[in-house]
């Protein structure tokens, strides 16, 4: 929409890609052994293995990492923490987060929330005349 916004987004993205590529290269020990088939390739499902074996797919995984890092930042995590957090995710976990970071369960509530729900139920019951605990 607005130019400044786009510029900023592009820069953030570029920075994210950069840090992720740097992390990715530093933390992929299997790459060092040419021709050897890595454990990750075999452990994953056959389809994922076929994809991962592909260099293109490897690049895509780096991009997914960058995207997830950006998503974490949007959800309030600072850039440095986000970079470290994505570096420890497996490829399968990255795919999951890239697709559904907004809908996955985020555990965080305590009993307070339960009390809140009970309160709402009581309010509904009171409103409909089933019970009478709130004075009107």
């Amino acid at each position: 929409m607005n130019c400044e916004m786009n510029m900023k987004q592009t820069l953030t993205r570029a920075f994210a890609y950069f840090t992720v590529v740097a992390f990715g290269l530093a933390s992929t020990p299997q790459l060092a052994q040419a021709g050897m088939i890595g454990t990750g390739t075999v452990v994953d499902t056959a389809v994922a293995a076929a994809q991962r074996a592909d260099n293109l797919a490897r690049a895509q995984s780096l991009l997914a990492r960058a995207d997830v890092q950006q998503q974490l930042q949007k959800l309030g995590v600072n850039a440095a923490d986000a970079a470290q957090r994505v570096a420890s995710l497996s490829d399968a976990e990255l795919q999951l987060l890239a697709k559904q970071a907004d809908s996955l369960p985020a555990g965080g509530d305590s009993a307070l929330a339960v009390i809140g729900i009970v309160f709402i139920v009581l309010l509904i019951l009171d409103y409909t005349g089933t019970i009478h605990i709130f004075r009107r």
Partner: protein
Amino acid sequence: MGRQLAIALLPVLLAGCAGLVPREAPVQGRSERVELADVPFFPQRRYQCGPAALATVLAYSGIDTSADALVPEVYLPARKGSLQVELLAASRRHARVGYVIEPTLAALVAELDAGHPVLVLQNLGAVHLPIWHYAVVIGYDSGREQFILRSGSTRRELLHAGRFAGTWRRGGRWGMLSLRPGEIPGGAQPARYLESVAALETAGQTAAARTSYEAAAARWPGEPLAWFALGNRRLADGGAREAESAFARALELAPGDVAARNNRALLLARRGCRAQALAEIALAAQRAEHGPLEREVADSRRTIEATAPGICTP
């Protein structure tokens, strides 16, 4: 109308608190009662049960940490909570194997029997109105049909087994362990464990992964994947001959394993055994035809064909 709606909604809304859940099988472990009383307690602040529960299992595994220290690692401010995969990833950053248990009460109890506290995701609300919460199960009592948890701001929560099972079921029966390198889960699930260790390895925790692979091969000597993974790790650590023997072991157990045969062939070629390497890669190519590893094996074959023969010592 409004009244009917409220009455219709009531059981849905209260399912989490009222214990209207169907009864599951009674708690049955190896003992009558288990309580891992040494598990520390980190009371949660608002919304931060993820960092608190993770600190509980990590501290029990010997990591010096706290709920506050883990907030920047697993908390998502805009979601007011933590994601499951991030708890696993954070375990790896602390050189612990983040292991997701089988989604059954029996598996959960088996881990408690083995002395492992289990970090669980509970849905304290209803299926369509979830209230997600993380807690750590530290024990059970068969006689009283109870689970014992470190949860929220309660140091020792006693939850009726049926009620706990309901909240756990609505949370997708998800539970994880943070295991020390080399520590094996109570449920005998080699593939699940090896997958968790592979993720630890990819996250750059190579020493912890090495220890865990060695332990897996010792615990499940008949599991070819354990030997294969150990072979790759030993090679990356610079032990080509040790790696070769691990691949050989994997192949004794699973002669059709393309990946192990491919890797063994490359190692043979590397130390001058060209003829043996060619024979091995030919076998691998036969098996790999039309499979997911076809291209890798073809590449290896070209590499081996291009190597000069050398002095091959057995």
